[in-house]
């Protein structure tokens, strides 16, 4: 007889912090690093791991639900080329999944990175990484801080560690973070199109937080449970329930995960122009049209719960703003069948919510660039976008599936080959059906000639190891024997 140990507690001190939750730190800097010398690079990596890398143990909340006084954080991830450069044995390297080994650029057709999103048109640091082995991005360092000056000083401290002789070369970096309200200097949780961001976080088993309905998986009786740990961390049972496919040795994989980094440029001028031009044709007006694209009003209120207006009470209550299903909205008369959030997390929209449970991703993104308020002059070329981070156990089954089948195809939602109105590579030919409402006799409306509101400007696939695995990589102890 076999027994199954319950996995209610995780080794928080072994798991990198950004996996567990978005830090309460509004400023980020993502640093792209090349390994030029294996031995000294591993020494530097050991120093970084012992003195800087932030684990999840800082996440023990106090009684008020606040994280305990974190001011700065550092996390690290590796590309496949990076693991090669650091000297992982071939017997371990060949055990990594194909998508990760190939890297994001080679998966461009599957991901819809064509036309203006083609890897040949990405930012220089990413193009160089794909074209020149001496400029390949091997390491991704993410600095998170409470303010910009701490970010600069912490970066300078780390840059000293990565000076000549460290085995590492900094290829470049990118800043991202929450926007600051120019009047109050407070940080705002919105993105460039004006939607509130960061509402739907995921809850999986073993997270040391209070449970919040709407964040895990929907059960047949309508209740919510945390998702299986193995959907987001290697070394634990997943939703199937099996062990997720993981590289060997076990200690290298356990408590680690995979991450898709995508620099997504937002064509803010095109987005606002489209809304302005199309909304007079749409009964319900501009804000409802913007809400129909996403499935939430711009303040975050879900259309399924509040189809007629924004609801500040609802949207500001974490126990309510994500706590809904499509049970009473199967025909999309509230949240359209092809709306962004319904594609990203269909909940019970495909009847069997189990189908959605295997396609979830943890999002840990921040916007970059300066927010241009509504009504002010804006160009598509302006620096606007999101540094999108998607964390999951399987890039193929989770991130890539969502990108291919749900962002760039609509058949699962009875939307033919319509793409996601916001993320889809629509190139001026996109179409979205906004289903009508038989109760109010609102007719269906079809949006046509949708441009690409978002273009990919860079990205790659990364492995986020545990602290144990980091030390093993640093000490050259990864062995499959």
């Amino acid at each position, binding site marked *: 007889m076999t027994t199954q140990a319950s996995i209610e507690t995780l080794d928080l001190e072994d798991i990198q912090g950004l996996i567990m939750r978005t830090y309460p730190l509004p400023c980020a800097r993502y640093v792209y690093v090349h390994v030029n010398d294996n031995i000294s690079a591993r020494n530097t990596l050991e120093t970084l791991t012992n003195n800087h890398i932030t684990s999840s143990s800082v996440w023990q909340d106090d009684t008020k639900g606040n994280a305990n006084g974190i001011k700065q954080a550092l996390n690290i991830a590796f590309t496949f080329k990076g693991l090669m450069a650091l000297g992982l044995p071939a017997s371990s390297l060949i055990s990594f999944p194909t998508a990760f080994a190939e890297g994001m650029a080679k998966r461009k057709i599957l991901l819809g990175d064509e036309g203006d999103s083609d890897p040949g048109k990405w930012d220089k640091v990413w193009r160089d990484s794909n074209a020149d082995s001496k400029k390949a991005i091997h390491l991704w360092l993410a600095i998170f801080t409470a303010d910009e000056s701490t970010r600069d000083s912490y970066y300078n401290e780390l840059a000293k560690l990565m000076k000549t002789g460290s085995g590492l070369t900094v290829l470049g970096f990118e800043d991202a973070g929450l926007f600051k309200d120019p009047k109050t200097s407070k940080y705002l949780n919105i993105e460039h199109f004006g939607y509130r961001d960061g509402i739907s976080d995921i809850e999986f088993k073993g997270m040391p937080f209070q449970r919040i309905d709407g964040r895990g998986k929907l059960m047949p009786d309508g209740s919510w449970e945390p998702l299986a740990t193995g959907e987001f961390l290697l070394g634990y049972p997943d939703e199937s329930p099996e062990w997720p496919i993981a590289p060997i040795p076990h200690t290298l994989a356990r408590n680690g995960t995979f991450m898709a980094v995508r620099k997504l440029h937002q064509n803010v001028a095109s987005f606002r122009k489209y809304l302005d031009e199309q909304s007079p*044709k749409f009964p319900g007006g501009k804000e409802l049209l913007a809400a129909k694209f996403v499935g939430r009003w711009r303040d975050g209120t879900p259309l399924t719960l509040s189809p007629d207006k924004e609801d500040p009470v609802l949207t500001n209550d974490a126990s309510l703003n994500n706590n809904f299903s499509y049970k009473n909205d199967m025909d999309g008369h509230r949240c359209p069948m092809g709306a962004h959030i319904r594609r990203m997390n269909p909940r019970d929209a495909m009847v069997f919510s189990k189908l959605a449970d295997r396609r979830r991703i943890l999002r840990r993104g921040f916007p970059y660039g300066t927010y241009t308020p509504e009504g002010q002059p804006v160009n598509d070329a302006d620096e606007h976008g999101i540094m999108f981070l998607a964390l999951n156990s399987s890039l193929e089954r989770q991130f890539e599936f969502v990108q291919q089948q749900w962002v760039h195809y609509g058949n699962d939602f009875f939307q033919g080959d319509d793409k996601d109105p916001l993320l889809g590579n629509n190139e001026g030919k996109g*179409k979205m059906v906004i289903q009508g409402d038989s109760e109010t006799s609102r007719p269906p*409306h*079809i949006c*046509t000639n949708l441009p690409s509101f978002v273009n990919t400007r860079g990205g790659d696939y990364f492995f986020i190891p545990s602290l144990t695995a980091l030390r093993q990589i640093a000490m050259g102890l990864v062995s499959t024997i």
Partner: protein
Amino acid sequence: MAINFSWFYKLTKPLNRILNKNGQAYNLTMLNPIKKDHADALRTTLAKIPVVDVDSPLANFPLTHFARFNVIDSLPFVGAPALYDHLQNQYLVFSCVFDTGNTNWRSVGSDLDAYLKQMFEAMPTEINSIWGHCVDFPEPLTLSAFQDFVKKYQIGGGFFFADYPNNTAEEARRALFEQKQFIDFVIKAQEISDHAQLKADFYQFSKNLADAPTPPPGSIFTSSVVKE
């Protein structure tokens, strides 16, 4: 101990032939032994058939819903201990679904003859270059010899699932075509506020649609009948 089931298959053959039909759709499956040392050449021939579109030789006879060829080498058992179920030959599998236009199970014989006649007339070169690699291929090739050859190597479809048992391939193409045209019309109609105008436009659209030819076999996409 091997048990010989051939008597069972002889008994059930008439039933199997009837089961090849679901609604008006017919499932033809052939299992042809490939002549010794011909499999490589056959694979090359098959690889060079244009992908399924209007250029495919299979698009030249409109009864076909879909068709596929497979070459089978041998049957490995995946597991331990590793086993191969070695076949005496390599085999060519041809499997297709075609329209008979009737739901009468008694006509399965004449349905198949009619389809093979269409195939024989539409792709005689390909019949030679494909099945010519198979054992017993009739030479010289005549229609009746080809029909006999197919029936000799036909295997029963058994429990045949048809995507569209009651619709012909042409009806399916027509439906997809009309769906696309109708979406185009709805998009255009969103901008018409005058009811009389909408009605007039719809009548015009219906007429244009009725007059528009169905796209040829192997194609779906075509230009819009809705005027910009």
